[in-house]
Structure formats: C-alpha cells, structure tokens
C-alpha cells in the first residue's frame, strides 16, 4: 500500500543530481571520468557512422578508402539483397508489403483492444493468409515464388511468427500435461520436454531439414521451410513450457481449489483462473524467450535458407563490396535492434500494466 501523503521534502532536480553524482570528490571524479569516456565513445561512433562516412551511392572501394568512416554505398547498392535475399527482383514489392503486413499484425496483437480470442484469431488468420498469398503467389495473377527463393527480412519474420504461433499452444499443452494428475501423461510430457531441451537447436533444425525426409513417408515430408519451422517451434515449446510451469508454481494452490469449489470445470479453471495468472508471473521470462527465438531465426542458414543474416553475408560477398562487411553488419544490427528493443519495451510496458493492481511497496 502506498502512503496517502509523502512527507519527504521535495528537492530540485539540480539538487538531486548533485547528491546522486557529486556527493563526494571521489564520486565526482568517477562521474566526470565516465561522462568523458562515454562522450569519447559517442564521438568515435558518430565520426565513423556520419562525419567521415561516404553516402554516395556511386562510390566504390577506392573512393570510400579516401575517407576514414563507413562506406554506406554498400547499403545503397545491396539493400535489396540484404532485405529480400534472392526473392525475384521484379516481385520484391510483394516481399515488402508482406513484411509490412506481418509488422501490422504484430503491432495489432500487442494492443489490449485486440485481446479477444476472436479478434486475435481473425487478425492472425487474415494476416498469415495475406502474407502467404503475397509471398508464394500463384493466384490473383501473382507469379509463383518457391519457398526456397524467399529470403531476408520477410523470411526471418515468417519463421519467427510461425515459431511463436505453433510453439505457444504447444508449450501450453506440454505445460498442462506436465502438471496432469495422471503420472503417465505427466511423465511423458516431462520426457519430451527434457529430451528436446537436451538437444542443441542446430541439431534439431538439421534433423528436420535433412534427416526427416529419409524417415517420413512421402506425403508427410512437405516443404523444407515448414519442417524447419516445426523443429524451431518444438524447441521453443519445450523451453516455453518450462517457463509456464514456473508460472504455475507461483500460484497458490488455494486459487485452483477455490475455483474447483465454485464448480468450475477443468478448462474453465485453466482458462480463467490458472493460465492468466501463470502468464502474468511468467511474462518477463516469456518476453525473453521470444527475444531469443527472434535471434535464433538466424540459425536456419545452416540448412540453406537466406534469412536476414545470411542475406547480408551474401550482400558483401562479392568482389566489389567484400571490404564493407562492417557496414552491412551495422545495418542489420540496427534492424535486429529495432525489433528486439521494441519487443523488450513492450514487455516492460505490459508488465507494468498487468501488475498495476498488485503493486506492493
């Protein structure tokens, strides 16, 4: 409970600043030193990325070498490869629109307004359908583009989103099974989770892409991309199931017993009492898991997909631009950063919002 009145005296911002950073000569010194180092680093970065950089799209290695900074010409010339991989040049507007659709769907489903099962389902089904139609083509007069030609940002987003959509329900299922009262179910689920967690993601992806086709009957093999997404989703689910189980353990037993006493059935208890609370408790770890899943999309390069990271490698692996790999890496780090930072800030906001009713002082 917060006290109704705060009796502590209010101070000016300057006073607080002075007390925090310049309380003693030593603190003052440390503060000044840190500020100096930070300013120096910031200057180096600014100098390299902007002041000394070459922005001319027609520049080449020799021209860039005359200035000490970054050579952004590589981005100007190769951005299509970085963002869209080997997606056919004339059709890249489709990949661009598809990216925007996914981004829109993600933003929409982050809005509390949309948090109804029906609305979320509608947005996702529609979004996925539009994305797939645009990317794959073959109808409405769009030229068909094979999954193997997908690349860059749309592929990264697609793998990430599909991993989440498949992985989350799977995780909930596994977590619920693991706390089942039937020992067989609980133990089987435990075994599944522990087996998957004991394998590296790389090995799972490789198995799904390369080994599975030898073991499955023909009609089950499907496109390599979907097998890989399935593998990534399994991996995601195993970790996320444990995170949810952690959430379950934070809920007092009395909650579920009370729900039982009120005559709620299993699904009502889970859906209305247990899971919402478990998710709230597990939120920080869940956001973390999503961030990891986003980063791990880059692993699909080992099975030959040209996602964002691989596409950017392709961008500088050519005679003209081989010297400019740092610029390309900086460019895609900015893309990754934008996504992950957005995700983290959203997580923090969500946490604040969800715990609003429970704040303890």
């Amino acid at each position: 409970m917060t006290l109704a009145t705060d009796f502590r005296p209010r101070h000016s911002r300057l006073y607080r600043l002075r007390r925090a950073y310049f309380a003693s000569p030593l603190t003052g010194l440390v503060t000044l030193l840190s500020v100096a180092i930070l300013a120096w680093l910031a200057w180096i970065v600014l100098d390299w990325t902007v002041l000394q950089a070459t922005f001319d799209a027609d520049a080449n290695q020799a021209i860039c070498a005359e200035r000490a900074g970054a050579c952004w010409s590589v981005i100007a010339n190769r951005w299509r490869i970085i963002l869209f991989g080997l997606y056919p040049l004339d059709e890249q507007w489709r990949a661009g629109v598809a990216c925007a659709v996914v981004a829109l769907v993600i933003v929409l489903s982050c809005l509390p307004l949309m948090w109804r099962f029906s609305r979320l389902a509608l947005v996702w089904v529609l979004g996925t359908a539009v994305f797939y139609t645009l990317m794959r083509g073959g109808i409405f007069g769009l030229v068909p583009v094979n999954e193997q030609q997908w690349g860059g940002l749309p592929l990264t987003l697609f793998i990430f989103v599909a991993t989440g959509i498949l992985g989350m329900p799977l995780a909930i299922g596994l977590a619920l099974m693991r706390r089942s009262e039937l020992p067989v179910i609980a133990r089987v689920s435990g075994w599944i989770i522990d087996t998957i967690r004991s394998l590296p993601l790389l090995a799972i992806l490789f198995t799904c892409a390369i080994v599975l086709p030898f073991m499955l009957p023909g009609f089950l093999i499907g496109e390599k991309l979907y097998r890989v997404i399935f593998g990534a989703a399994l991996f995601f689910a195993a970790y996320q199931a444990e995170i949810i189980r952690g959430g379950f353990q934070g809920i007092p037993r009395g909650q579920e017993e009370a729900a039982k006493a009120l005559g709620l059935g299993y699904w009502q208890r889970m859906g209305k009492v247990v899971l919402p609370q478990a998710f709230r408790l597990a939120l920080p770890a869940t956001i973390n898991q999503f961030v990891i899943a986003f980063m791990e999309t880059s692993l699909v390069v080992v099975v030959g997909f040209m996602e964002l990271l691989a596409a950017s490698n392709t961008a500088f692996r050519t005679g003209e631009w081989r010297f400019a790999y740092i610029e390309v890496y900086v460019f895609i780090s900015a893309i990754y950063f934008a996504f992950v930072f957005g995700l983290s800030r959203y997580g923090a906001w969500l946490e604040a919002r969800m715990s609003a009713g429970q704040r303890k002082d």
Partner: protein
Amino acid sequence: MMKPILLSTVSLGALALSSLAAQADQGDTLRTVQERGSLNCPGDVGSYLGFAEVDDNGVWRGIDIELCRAMTSAIFGDPSHANIVPIDWAQRWPALQSGDIDIVIKASGGTRSRDTELGLQFSMSYYLGTTKVMGHAELGLETLADAAGGSICVPASTSTERQVSSYLEANGIEMEIVAIERNEEVEAAYFSGRCDTYAQWGPVLAIAASQSDDPSAHVLLPDVLALEPEVMIARQGDDNWIDIANWTLSALLFAEQEGITSENVDEIRQNPPTAEIGRFLGATPGLGAGLGLSDDWAYNVISQVGNYSEIFERSLGMESPYQMPREMTALWNAGGVLFPLVFD
C-alpha cells in the same frame, strides 16, 4: 571444399541414414531432371568469390554457377532452367543424396572418402585449387621456411588448417598457428599485422591480395601446401548422369581448344571446318543419342554460356574484378593441365 565442417558430425549422422535410403532411389537422374523441368544445383552464401556469388540484381554468378548453367543448357537447350538452391557446406552431401540437388558443383574436391564412403561419383576436374601462403612483403620472405618463428593465420576447422600443420611438421618449420573462424576475420587479422603470413585456398588468397589497399605490400610464397582438384559430384550409380557432366565440361574445353566462342559459334556451325566440329555443333547428327540429349546440345552450351575460357574470364579472370590469371587452369596447349576428351 576446405570450408568449415561445422556440422560434420551431424551431417555424417544424416548421411549414414541417407546413403541407405538413397541407394534405392537413384534411378535415372536425367529423366528426373527433365520431368521436373529444372536442374537443381547448389549455390551458397558462404562460397568463394568468383565461384558463387550474388550480383546487385540477385542473380547468381561465378564459375560453379556457370558450369551448372552449361549443364542445364546441354539438357534443356536453355540455361534458364537452372535452379540454384542455397545450400550450406555441411549440407551438400545429404542434399545430393536426398535428391534436393542433382549435382554438387561447389568448389569441392574429389577425395577418396567422398568417393568410397559417401557413395559419390566425380567428373573430371574443372579447376585445380592449391593451398598457398601469403606474407607481408616488408618481412622479405622467400619461402615459408623463412617465416619460421613467426605466426601464420589460418581459417579454423577447415582442411587448410590441417594442411598447414602437416606441412609445417613435414618441413620442420616452427610457427605459431593462429586459427580464426570467419574468413573476413582471418583476413582482417592478417592485414592488420596480427600474423606474419596467411594460409588459404589459392583463389581466395589471390583475390584477397589483389584487392587489398596496397597489393605490392604482400608476396605470394611459392610453397604449395596441398593440391585439390575441384570436380562435379553426383550420386554413385548413375553412369549416364556423370557422363553428361563430363561431356559438358569436355565440350567447354573442346570449344576453347578449337577457338569456338559464343560469338562465332553460329558462323562455325554454318561452315564447319572439319567433320568433327560439324558433328560437335550438331550440324550433322550423332552427338546426343548416346547421352539421351539432343544432337545440338553442345551448340546450345556454347551459344548460351560460352566456352571454358569465356566462363573463366567472366567469373575469375580479366573480365571479373579479381583479374586472376589462368595458370594451371589453362588448357594443355597453353601451359595448363586441363584437356577435353575426344569428340570423335
């Protein structure tokens, strides 16, 4: 080829399974390819400059890609049926065995273990790759032995690393081996002066030297650490398929030997100087029947893709940014070791 075998364990496990399954499913590769309407070859984002790379418009370039286009032209009469599938190093053998790709043309050498243990089959060599060493000119090195006591940068966990250590051991040279994972980083380490010398697959080394800020500051040492003949690789057991690969390569080399280029091929076909060339270009019948191809398949290859020299110059040679000389990869009558089979 000498590239990271990061996933070798997993891929070998996959292969153990795959070779079993693949034995049953070899069939007639040519027919499979014709029915599918495309020849699937590997492309790689981590391959070597000049062998497989992507231009500004997202089109694959490089000698490996051109060979795939040549084979596609032989089969379909048109290189646009080539389908370049991005495939990682570790994945090329399982992908070949599983039928995802029809042939591996990926700067890969013909080795005993690949032939006998992985169940593969090779064409003749289309490129001879040597592992060499480059050093800073200011050190005044003449051979690698002069660099004794110094350091050598090598790409980590590649066959280059093994070749370097066995060469040093065999010649009693003591050097500090600095193994670094990524190619860009190995190069950066050498150019920044972290190492005295830099060992790498020949073409990569030559390109690195020629494109450095000051090419004259580096010398290529005469030591040859290893030789690897790069070949086209197919599944064992489809003799006609490897024949097609071999005769496509021979056609490229024969055309170069006879001075037939994509420019003058039509002219020569109208007026073949010999009966041999007349048959070669499909002016008289007889070339394709034995392979299951059309009689003008060689004409299609040369007119659509060009001869070996044209391919080389576009990819690695004087018309490319890399300006590499042919050297060993020249024809037999120009001081090299490549030769066509006889088109009798």
